């Protein structure tokens, strides 16, 4: 097949050279076949399909990384804007959008990691060379700080983007709290996720700086029916009752902002709650199995509700045992968090297990990095968290929330959008 016969996908053509292709070309270059910058044209077919097979589309009505089947690894970064120029913020979002499209396609940034000017630092830092797209998604969000006096956007702040209240028991560390912007990078290879955040933060120098960041090493939720339910750091299946991409009616009801929700620029977007929840693992691990199951409200093995059945059986909170008490304790996590206790309110959870090593006392600094997408945090997150913070034995006894942030996640970019220094960018409706 000649190149002239090939239909070129617009989005693909805007992307840079595939990381996979670059490595495949060494022999061809030596043979003098190189056409450009290290010979991307050679050695293509097999490597190309392997590289692209696990790539998600950057474009779409909604940003990727929300209902996308949840990947195994996370690098999350919250940024402070260090500029007070609205034009610079727009410029940053353009650079990020253009880079995100390339990164998600498994392509190198700019002139690549080894193909650029010899006297200049490479545009791409290179640690993802040879790695496929790895299901990378990049999801951008706006924190309350974007709407402060610096940028004149105050009138466009959505009512849903509240300053989260203090929840009973919160022990927030400023080092893991807040932020003007955020990027959630999820991938099936941690190196690909970290590479994305590293390169995006590099593009931000001067306009935004990382305020805090969190790595997650394993997902604690499923966002599609095809995925197994993973286990959290407490050893229990987590997210059994999570919203799934297939539940489109429920996703529309509980995840996506609709026209009429307030700020029209948020239509098709969502709100991201991020909470760094440390698990007091040593104490939890000394708790009897009976107490652990009673605390959660499910069995540790199969994840079935204590009222019986299997993992996906609906819990029956009215079923009582010999002593007349409910089999699922009213102060169990399942009972307090269940939609039936909150007018049916659901969240699309997308959390990750994390560990940042050990603290100075030799205890695991580990837990759950809770991420949840909701249409209105005031109705979906705050009431649930208030119930858990005050009554949930698990939250009160075994968890410490050390970080907290809320972001407005705007809609996605329409397929066919042209990116670049004058082009389309994530969140453009806010600045229109």
């Amino acid at each position, binding site marked *: *097949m000649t*190149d002239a016969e*090939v*239909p*070129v*996908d617009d*989005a*693909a*053509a805007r*992307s*840079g*050279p*595939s990381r996979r*292709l670059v490595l495949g070309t060494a022999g061809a*270059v*030596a043979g*003098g*076949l*190189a*056409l*450009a*910058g*290290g*010979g*991307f*044209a050679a050695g*293509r*077919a097999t490597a*190309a*399909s392997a*590289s*692209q*097979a*696990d*790539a*998600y*589309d950057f474009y*779409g009505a*909604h940003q*990727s990384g929300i*209902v*996308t089947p949840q990947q195994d690894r996370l690098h999350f970064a919250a940024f402070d804007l*260090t500029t007070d120029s609205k034009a610079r913020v727009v410029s940053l979002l353009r650079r990020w959008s253009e880079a995100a499209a390339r990164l998600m*396609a498994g392509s190198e940034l*700019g*002139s*690549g990691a080894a*193909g650029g*000017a*010899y*006297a*200049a*630092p490479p*545009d791409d830092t290179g640690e993802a060379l040879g790695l496929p797209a790895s299901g990378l*998604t990049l999801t951008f969000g706006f924190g309350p700080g974007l709407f402060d006096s610096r940028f004149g956007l105050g009138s466009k702040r959505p009512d849903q983007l509240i300053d989260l209240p203090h929840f009973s028991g919160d022990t927030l560390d400023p080092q893991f709290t807040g932020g003007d912007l955020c990027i959630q990078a999820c991938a099936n290879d941690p190196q690909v996720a970290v590479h994305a955040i590293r390169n995006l933060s*590099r593009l931000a*120098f*001067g306009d935004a*700086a990382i305020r805090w960041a969190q790595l997650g090493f394993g997902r604690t939720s499923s966002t599609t029916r095809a995925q197994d339910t993973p286990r959290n750091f407490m050893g229990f299946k987590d997210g059994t009752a999570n919203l799934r*991409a297939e539940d489109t009616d429920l996703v529309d009801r509980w995840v996506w902002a609709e026209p009429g929700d307030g700020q029209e620029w948020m239509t098709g977007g969502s709100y991201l709650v991020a909470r760094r929840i440390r698990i007091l693992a040593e104490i939890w691990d000394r708790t009897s199995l009976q107490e652990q199951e009673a605390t959660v409200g499910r069995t540790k093995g199969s994840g079935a509700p204590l009222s019986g059945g299997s993992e996906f059986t609906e819990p029956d909170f009215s079923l009582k045992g010999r002593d007349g008490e409910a089999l699922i304790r009213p102060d169990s996590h399942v009972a307090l968090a269940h939609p039936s206790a909150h007018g049916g309110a659901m969240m699309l959870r997308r959390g990750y297990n994390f560990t940042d090593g050990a603290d100075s006392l030799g205890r695991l600094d580990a837990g759950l990095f809770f991420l949840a997408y909701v249409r209105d945090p005031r109705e979906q997150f705050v009431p649930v968290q208030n119930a858990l913070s005050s009554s949930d034995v698990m939250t009160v006894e075994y968890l410490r929330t050390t970080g907290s942030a809320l972001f407005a996640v705007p809609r996605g970019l329409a397929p066919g959008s042209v990116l670049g220094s004058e082009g389309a960018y994530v969140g453009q409706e806010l600045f229109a």
Partner: protein
Amino acid sequence: MPRPALAASGAVLAALALSACVPNATADDEAIAVDSSNDACDVATAEVPSGTVVFDVTNTGDDVTEFYLLASDGLRIISEVENIGPGITRQLVVQVPAGDYLTACKPGMTGDGIQAAFTVTDSGEDVTTGDNAEQLAAAGEQYLLYVRDQIQTLTTKTDAFLAAYTAGDDDEARALYADARVHWERIEPVAESFGDLDPMMDAREADLAEGESWTGWHRIEKNLWPPAEGYDLTDAEKQELADKLAADTAELASRVNAEDFAIDAFQVGNGAKELLDEVAAGKITGEEEIWSHTDLWDFQANVDGAAVAYGVLHDVVAQTDPDLVEELDSRFTELNEQLAQYGSIEEGFVLYTDLTEDQIVELARSVDALGEPLSRLTAAAVL
């Protein structure tokens, strides 16, 4: 809902590769493959339109090779890429106006090389950057004058500092310490280029390996700002340290004043970047002056030196990359304004230990904001 991109077959990528973005300077330009073997120099094409020309030079021979683009007289070098090891591919990016040229491979790095005619036709495109060689040479010379001037002042101020130190006037020595070091810090990459002098003059205690002897500025610093009782030196030990630093400073001065000592534009550009690296690695953390805490003097001096290096390249880069110039100008201003909140070299700075964590973070962010574009200065100047 996002779904896997199905469209991307291998063939699509093949087409993509032809239109792919390649290096910034060479976007939309196709590289010309050059095969430099033991006895041939195969250039894929002998005629190109004027503008940015990119050669991908692959050494298929057994010796180290070089590739030159020469003026038609075969003498004047338009641009070159050196030190290409066997099997390695290196890129040469050059702005070329219309005219007749020669290409040359030089396997073994000797002789006139294997030459061939190379024609650049008029593309109608403005080739504004053309030949900056004269401007770049002038930049190197200008910077060298600055280096010599700083080292002369360094010598004078070091002598005064050491006189106070050996006379036992510790208060006076402490007052002179940071101000003298400013002149070292401003030209630090040049001083560091003398690999034997730098460790003798500027090593920090933590830089030493087990059993190495410690001399130079920071040895005296620790004596003047002892961390605890019991760090006294005898007069003879002090005199020995002073004599050593004075001698090493004199040696540094004689080397940079040697007739054959030169600095090229490439070194100037990289020096600017390295000065900001110094700030980011040692000053912003308070590690450089761990006893005296006079890190902000060094910080300002590093920024001063970087600004001078940038200044001598400014006019060249203003032609090749005006956006970069605009960004660098504003980032230098921002950082200098921030530093000015904490004092000046003339009036003195607050100590590093007086800065709050927020102030340090703010400074670090401004250093990153300047350091990132500054890392592109060399390529913008010399390409």
